[in-house]
């Protein structure tokens, strides 16, 4: 399809120059900020790795219109597999790079506990992201395009998570008594009050009793690196990716390819050509998938190497050594996954604001024991999220696609309600489409496929509901579309 592509009339070279100037100004600001941080303390290099990988993710996400909500939603709503294909390409590449990183001994990955919560959390998350119009990272890059609906989604995810992990009240009674007993038996410090608050009971009384294992550990195949890589990379990631790509081709692409080929039947070579055509039909998405897969793996390697260099396990130790002890957890830790992650740092933003407003946000496991509540200026993964926004803004400005888009009452409602569901789902599943899916399946953790199943199920139901609402709206407002 070779369309005539032109700039809209009235957009002169001055306008183009102005946009590129803004884009360059963002790059300059991030560069100067980095130099300033290093001038204060060279150990801020650890935080800056998150910043710059965030910028790279932002550029790639905007370039490929890469949003995992679209992978599920567009498949069911408009039968377009391009984003699901892009997502699988990214998973395959990340898995291969992660295998190399694991072999070098620099992997920062830890498997997630496997249980029913992954499926339920994924379903709630998937139901929410159809209404918000973007996944966790998609909402960040769209914020960088000037979309303030997406900024509202980010705020909603941040505060809903902060409230979920800290709230205590009548709904504590929803937690089974066994959780309360198990939580009490953990012998946690009194300051954490683990027997109060639904999320503390859920974490200490349920999650901590589960095991997180890679597929190689689950199948007990032994310690040989070759066997481990074969099981964790090939069986857990590459094989499912190939299976999903074949299914996407068979159910969503083959019919159109058959029509375009003009043939009555397709041979094996034609089918392979069809698969290739599907994977490359949206070049931007495919290239972004390749880039994200590679850089996500490299991110893990660079952070792992820095941890070894500074002889630390967590950024909290480095912060303490630099004299920044405010907001560290009681273990002297902060949230520091060492790889691409989105929702937990956003929960910290929400929690930090609430703490400053006088709410005690550290008397729970999530902030008080595990992730801390550092000042946002010292929140390394938080800067990765900001980096995504800035990277996307740089490219959107350079491509003249940046546009301030303000919410209406309707879009604001969807952004807030959908964002709340995404926040709740992310906390129940212990991560979002990045932390609970993308980072897990690529590192040998099968729990990510359970999350994907839940996310697809929730997304499917949500598309049905959303379509009904759209039909009702079109019927009410007219326009002749029905």
């Amino acid at each position: 399809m070779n369309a005539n592509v032109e700039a809209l009339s009235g957009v002169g070279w001055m306008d183009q120059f102005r946009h590129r100037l803004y884009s360059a100004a963002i790059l300059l600001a991030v560069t100067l900020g980095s130099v300033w941080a290093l001038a204060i303390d060279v150990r801020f290099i650890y935080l800056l790795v998150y910043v710059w990988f965030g910028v790279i993710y932002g550029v790639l996400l905007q370039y490929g219109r890469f949003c995992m909500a679209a992978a599920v939603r567009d498949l069911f709503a408009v039968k377009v597999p391009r984003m699901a294909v892009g997502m699988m390409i990214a998973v395959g590449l990340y898995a291969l790079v992660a295998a190399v990183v694991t072999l070098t001994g620099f992997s920062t990955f830890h498997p997630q506990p496997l249980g029913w919560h992954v499926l339920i959390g994924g379903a709630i998350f998937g139901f929410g992201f159809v209404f918000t119009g973007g996944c966790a990272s998609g909402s960040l890059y769209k914020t960088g395009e000037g979309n303030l609906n997406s900024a509202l989604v980010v705020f909603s995810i941040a505060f809903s998570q902060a409230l979920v992990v800290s709230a205590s009240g009548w709904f504590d009674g929803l937690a089974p008594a066994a959780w309360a007993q198990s939580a009490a038996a953990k012998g946690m410090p009194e300051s954490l009050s683990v027997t109060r608050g639904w999320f503390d009971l859920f974490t200490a009384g349920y999650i901590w009793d589960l095991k997180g294992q890679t597929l190689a550990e689950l199948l007990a195949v032994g310690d040989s690196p070759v066997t481990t890589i074969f099981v964790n990379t090939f069986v857990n990631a590459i094989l499912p990716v190939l299976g999903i790509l074949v299914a996407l081709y068979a159910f969503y692409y083959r019919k159109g390819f058959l029509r375009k080929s003009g043939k009555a039947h397709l041979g094996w070579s034609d089918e392979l050509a069809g698969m290739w055509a599907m994977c490359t039909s949206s070049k931007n998405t495919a290239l972004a998938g390749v880039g994200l897969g590679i850089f996500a793996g490299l991110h893990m390697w660079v952070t792992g190497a820095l941890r070894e260099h500074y002889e630390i396990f967590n950024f909290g130790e480095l912060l303490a050594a630099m004299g920044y002890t405010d907001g560290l957890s009681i273990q002297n830790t902060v949230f520091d996954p060492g790889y691409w992650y989105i929702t937990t740092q956003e929960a910290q933003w929400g929690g930090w604001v609430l703490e400053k407003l006088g709410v005690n946000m550290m008397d729970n496991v999530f902030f008080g024991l595990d992730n801390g509540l550092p000042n946002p200026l010292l929140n390394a993964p938080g800067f990765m999220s900001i980096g995504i926004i800035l990277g996307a803004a740089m490219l959107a400005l350079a491509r003249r696609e940046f546009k301030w888009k303000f919410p209406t009452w309707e879009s604001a409602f969807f952004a807030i309600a959908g964002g709340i569901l995404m926040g709740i789902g992310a906390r129940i599943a212990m991560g979002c489409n990045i932390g609970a899916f993308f980072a897990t399946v690529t590192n040998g953790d099968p729990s990510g496929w359970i999350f994907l199943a839940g996310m697809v199920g929730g997304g499917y139901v949500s598309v049905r509901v959303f379509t009904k609402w759209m039909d009702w709206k079109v019927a009410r407002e007219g326009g002749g579309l029905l």
Partner: protein
Amino acid sequence: MAMSFEQTAAGQWTLNVTGYTCPHPQMYTKKAMQKLASGDVLTLLFDNPSSGESILSMCDNDGNEVFDRHDGDGNFVWKIRKA
């Protein structure tokens, strides 16, 4: 903000979904294309960049041709001919 879909001449239609974010533009476009007869042309106005990639793929899958694109400052005006 309201979506508009109207016939401007014989075989010529306009769908304006400016101001809408995902997934509205691609879903409205799909509905609009279903209303067109073969050979009809839809002029599509939207300002959500990520919808564009999905709309291109949707047209490619269905055999519809995006034959004219005017893009700039976050606004997109595309012409799509129905197969």
